[in-house]
């Protein structure tokens, strides 16, 4: 079922024409922001010279730090009188980033979320518990407006008071829930303690944090839902930018509203389908805060094949942040790639550590520590040595890089709560 069939299934030529038109409109809109006006003038970029999608490369990137430097309203392209809402993103360092919305922005943003909810089969017959922070965080009001637009019965539950949340699910017959994957795990635990199987719940929407396929299996099993991955960031409205369809195999990113590029984060060079790199987005319909080529810092890739659901091209589930990227002997390596390889090997545990050193020949050496799972220990040294070689070989095939693998005792690696710090870079500058 489609919310906006025309845009969701647009043919490539038609989509490209729409994107170019909207890109040019966006370039005109950003000229109301001093930062862009000066930058475009300095580079001598005229809107008319943007004729093909390839021309987007002529435009400058926008970084998170640029937005911070514009605190609070420096990136607004309209007068404050036209801004009907402000959200902020949590600033782990320094001031938060401020984002603003016109009435039209709120409408278009809710519409994108309505697309996503309809895509996974939710309708006005669903009862929707929105269990995320309802304040300055975009996830709360974003989903609230989108779900109302679909006509769902919305519970703005917020976070906390988990037992009350579970009572609501059971008493109100909640069919769909939106929360972070970590809160969903907590809900599952408390529901088990309370002895309820949350029988009415069928759909789980999880976002704002990365989560693995293992977590998906776990959540689907424990909550009795089908779990969908939701992606967004405040700078691009908020949630709703990309979303999984019932295939649960990659996320549909809405190309009519977001112009997508994947780049090598180290060089800025464009990467093709199937090549993992940083997602760079030029939002095409934002009014209050238009942006050019925003560096999301999130790692994904364009998927090559078409989705059976008939919607436009997907991106892969996100696999980490650019900040986590390592450059080993000139090759980009993401800890998530290592994680992916290790997860596919039944003999080793979920935890791992990566140590990077520079040897006496000034060459980078990467050593990965993994735990051997108990059932796979035969007692024979030769079997362990074979396992060690197998891991080295599998990593080399995937990373195209020779690594050293160290087998360690089960339970000996650090367990992380919250953000995992699995990489220890001990290289000194050359």
């Amino acid at each position, binding site marked *: 079922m489609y919310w906006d069939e025309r845009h969701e299934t647009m043919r490539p030529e038609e989509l490209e024409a729409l994107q170019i038109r909207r890109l040019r409109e966006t370039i005109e809109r950003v000229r109301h922001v001093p930062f862009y006006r000066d930058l475009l003038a300095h580079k001598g970029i005229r809107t008319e010279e943007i004729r093909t999608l390839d021309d987007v490369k002529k435009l400058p990137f926008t970084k998170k730090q640029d937005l911070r430097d514009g605190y609070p309203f420096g990136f607004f392209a309209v007068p404050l009188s036209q801004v009907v809402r402000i959200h902020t993103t949590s600033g782990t360092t320094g001031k938060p980033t401020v984002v603003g919305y016109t009435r039209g922005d709120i409408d278009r943003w809710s519409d994108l979320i309505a697309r996503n909810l309809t895509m996974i089969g939710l309708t006005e017959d669903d009862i929707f518990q929105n269990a995320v922070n309802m304040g300055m965080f975009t996830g709360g009001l974003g989903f609230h407006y989108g779900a109302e637009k679909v006509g769902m019965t919305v519970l703005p539950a917020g976070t906390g008071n988990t037992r009350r949340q579970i009572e609501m699910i059971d008493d109100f017959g909640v069919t769909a829930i939106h929360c972070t994957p970590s809160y969903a795990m907590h809900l599952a635990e408390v529901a088990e303690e309370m002895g309820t199987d949350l029988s009415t719940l069928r759909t789980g929407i999880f976002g704002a944090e990365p989560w693995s396929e293992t977590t998906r299996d776990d959540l689907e099993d424990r909550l009795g839902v089908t779990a969908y991955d939701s992606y967004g960031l405040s700078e691009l409205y908020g949630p709703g930018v990309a979303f999984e369809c019932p295939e649960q195999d990659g996320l549909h990113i809405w190309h009519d509203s977001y112009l997508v590029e994947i780049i090598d984060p180290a060089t800025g060079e464009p990467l093709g389908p199937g090549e993992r790199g940083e997602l760079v987005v030029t939002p095409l319909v934002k009014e209050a805060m238009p942006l050019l080529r925003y560096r999301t810092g999130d790692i994904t890739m364009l998927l090559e094949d078409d989705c059976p659901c008939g919607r436009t091209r997907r991106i892969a589930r996100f696999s980490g942040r650019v900040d986590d990227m390592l450059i080993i002997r000139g090759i980009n390596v993401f800890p998530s790639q290592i994680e992916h390889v290790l997860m596919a090997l039944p003999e080793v545990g979920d935890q791992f550590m990566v140590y990077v050193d520079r040897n006496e020949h000034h060459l980078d050496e990467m050593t990965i520590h993994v735990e051997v799972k108990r059932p796979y*220990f035969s007692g*024979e040294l030769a079997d362990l040595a074979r396992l060690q070689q197998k891991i080295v070989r599998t990593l080399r095939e995937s990373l195209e890089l020779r690594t050293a693998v160290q087998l360690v005792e089960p339970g000996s690696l650090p367990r992380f709560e919250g953000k995992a710090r699995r990489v220890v870079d001990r290289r000194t500058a050359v």
Partner: protein
Amino acid sequence: MAENEFIIRQISVFSENRPGRLAAIAHALEEERVNIYAFSIAEASGFGVVRALVDQPERAHARLSRDGFNVAFTDVIAVRMRDEPGGLYEVAAMLGDAGINIEYSYAYSGPAGAVLILRVDRPEEAINRIRSAGKELLSSAAFH
């Protein structure tokens, strides 16, 4: 299944190659009052396997597992050797002539004689060969 009485359960413990690991294993066995008859360490890059013949293998397995170690039982055989020059040659040649491969081995020698502990690729055949040559194999009852 007469051969089975000569198959002895060796306890094998995965250990990282770093200070204090053997002490941790030995201390756990001491606390459980488990006696070690024979033991050896095999090492590869960064890790090793501690192999031991003990008087209470189940107890040792349970305790070391509880302490978080990777522990497994491995079948070995134990042959009494003449404790004099040529004793080892006699046993090794017997197996070599029969085409039985020794994967690893360790030995102890004390007042009661010398014992060679063997991990071989075909234990039942090895047992038959050794017995028919009139050599003494230790039964598992001698250890456990």
